[in-house]
């Protein structure tokens, strides 16, 4: 399927699939984003100055048709990763491959990539232009890609109906006249307007109250089936991530700590950070309550991250080796964890004992 096809036809076929279902939709390798700290005049001259290692070498894949949940504490690089994937900020290093094509290459120019990947932001109000009506906001994206205005408006009204907002009542309304849940539905419709294959949901339901959040989550799951979408679902809410995700990626301080199928990861976390994170999750079942102390304090400063394993400063199983050796993200039966406990030759005293054997 060529990428030069006209926009009107994309919705009709199977989303311009190129590599078949086995090829990951999105494949990220060695993604790095370092933000320069505000430099003084001298540091600008000498080229020195420190950097914030917001995302520091991240590898992951998003499979076709799945929902990949991304969790982690504030400041772990979740949102920076989302913005990097959307090319809203330029990566310092690394490669993003979308369905077999490198983003920005001749085969997949950025403009075309941005039609196939869309994003829903956390702040439903800030992400709608207050001077545009709802239908104009939704119709903007398709018009950018050459859909005539009349058709784009018709499509916007159709999409409003799909996300549960009666077009006659809402199409010509202004964003400030809508509630938070309604606005987020509009944002979802806007993201779907250019008929994307991957939708990045950056804390998309976090600002909604619980009942509305549940409605929007169910809407997202319905839309995913209806439009054959793939989701990258970023959230700090572990319950929500468990509910919606097929696979989960745990991030800590700009690196991937663990990835794996949602159920396996939640039932039997491999990485001590994942365990700590999950133990902070309130459980309905008294038998599942954990004796482990939840994490104390804040993550270390990403300007000067700890050497070795970044989690060793807060890890209950930390040993001297953890401060020296950087754990690799090793694959084990469909799951990956970056922890020396699971690295055979790392010399961690807990390897390969209780945790993994169990």
């Amino acid at each position: 399927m060529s990428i030069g096809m006209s926009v009107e036809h994309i919705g009709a076929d199977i989303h311009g699939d190129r590599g078949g279902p086995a090829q990951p939709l999105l494949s990220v390798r060695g993604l790095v984003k370092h933000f320069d700290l505000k430099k003084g005049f001298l540091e600008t001259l000498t080229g020195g100055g420190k950097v914030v290692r917001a995302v520091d070498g991240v590898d992951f894949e998003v499979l076709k048709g799945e929902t990949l949940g991304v969790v982690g504490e504030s400041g772990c690089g979740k949102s920076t990763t989302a913005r990097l994937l959307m090319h809203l900020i330029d990566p310092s290093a690394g490669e993003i491959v979308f369905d077999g094509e490198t983003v920005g290459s001749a085969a997949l120019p950025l403009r075309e990539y941005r039609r196939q990947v869309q994003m829903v932001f956390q702040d439903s109000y800030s992400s709608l232009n207050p001077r545009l009506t709802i239908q104009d906001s939704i119709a903007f994206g398709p018009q950018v890609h050459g859909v005539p205005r009349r058709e784009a408006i018709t499509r916007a009204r159709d999409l409003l109906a799909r996300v549960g907002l009666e077009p006659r009542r809402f199409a010509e309304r202004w964003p400030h006249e809508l509630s938070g849940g309604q606005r987020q539905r509009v944002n979802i419709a806007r993201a779907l307007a250019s008929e994307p294959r991957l939708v990045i949901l950056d804390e998309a339901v976090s600002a909604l109250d619980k009942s509305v959040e549940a409605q929007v989550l169910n809407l997202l799951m319905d839309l995913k089936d209806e439009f054959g979408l793939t989701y990258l679902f970023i959230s700090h809410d572990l319950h929500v991530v468990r509910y919606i995700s097929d696979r989960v990626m745990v991030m800590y301080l700009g690196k991937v700590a663990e990835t794996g199928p949602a159920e396996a990861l939640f039932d039997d976390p491999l990485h001590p950070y994942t365990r700590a994170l999950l133990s902070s999750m309130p459980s309905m079942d008294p038998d599942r309550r954990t004796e482990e102390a939840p994490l104390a304090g804040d993550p270390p400063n990403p300007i000067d991250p700890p050497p070795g394993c970044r989690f060793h400063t807060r890890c209950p199983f930390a040993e001297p080796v953890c401060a020296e050796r950087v754990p690799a993200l090793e694959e084990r039966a469909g799951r990956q964890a970056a922890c020396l406990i699971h690295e055979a030759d790392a010399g961690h005293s807990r390897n390969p004992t209780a945790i993994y054997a169990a």
Partner: protein
Amino acid sequence: MTTLNAGAAPAPVYERSAGFWSGVLKKLARDPVAIGAAAVLLALVLIALFAPLITPHDPYQTSLLKRLRPIGFENFLLGTDELGRDLLSRLMLGARLSLFMGIVPVLIAFVLGSAIGILAGYAGGLANTLIMRTIDVLYAFPSVLLAIALSGALGAGIGNALLSLTIVFIPPIARVAESVTTQVRGRDFVEAARASGAGAFTIVRVHVLGNVLGPIFVYATSLIAVSMILASGLSFLGLGVRPPEPEWGLMLNTLRTAIYTQPWVAALPGVMIFITSISFNLLSDSLRSAMDVKN
């Protein structure tokens, strides 16, 4: 997947809510201060437009016998000036040049300053630094001094006064434009527009302009009063309008010698400047609060 086709259904009736600007107008209509100020300004504009038709006397007709007569003298309602010309007629005709010198430089500076500021604000980074530091150099001069220096260098005359006032007003407008644009640029809807693949020009046209022009315009209206006063100042110094053309600043200048003999008559051009500038200020204040969505 189902296609998002244009259905051939009968055109449904869409509920439409009032637009932003009609909301602003509605709020202004409920604000007595705004109505008062607008009425005064409207009256001034009408007087300026129809001045030649409604002046009771010839504004250029001098009379050595009737110099500096007090307010209400014979049929000279507001007295006469130092050359015996009817002051009311000259104030009416003077409204033309004074309003012109107040509004036109600000209007031109609004267009140019907004363009510069929006460009700098949207570009960000190094381009922003270069543009805004250059603007700051101009901004560092006190506006009166800059206007006088520019007018003086360019030579006396209305055109040059206009040009120098325009240059004086570009930096403050550009700074306001830059700061609101920087704010808007950081909002998620601009990010979302970028994420949809739109180019910078389209984003500025569709998403930035509508959100920044309002605040810049409000600020610019507050400069009209300043422009009138500066233009008057230039005329006062002999750098703007030349006699015998009536202009309030120039009239204030030529009448200053009469401040002891006919203080009320001598103060009248100043009163007109005051009334006009305070009307513009009050109107722009009301506009500012009417445009505040949170109210």
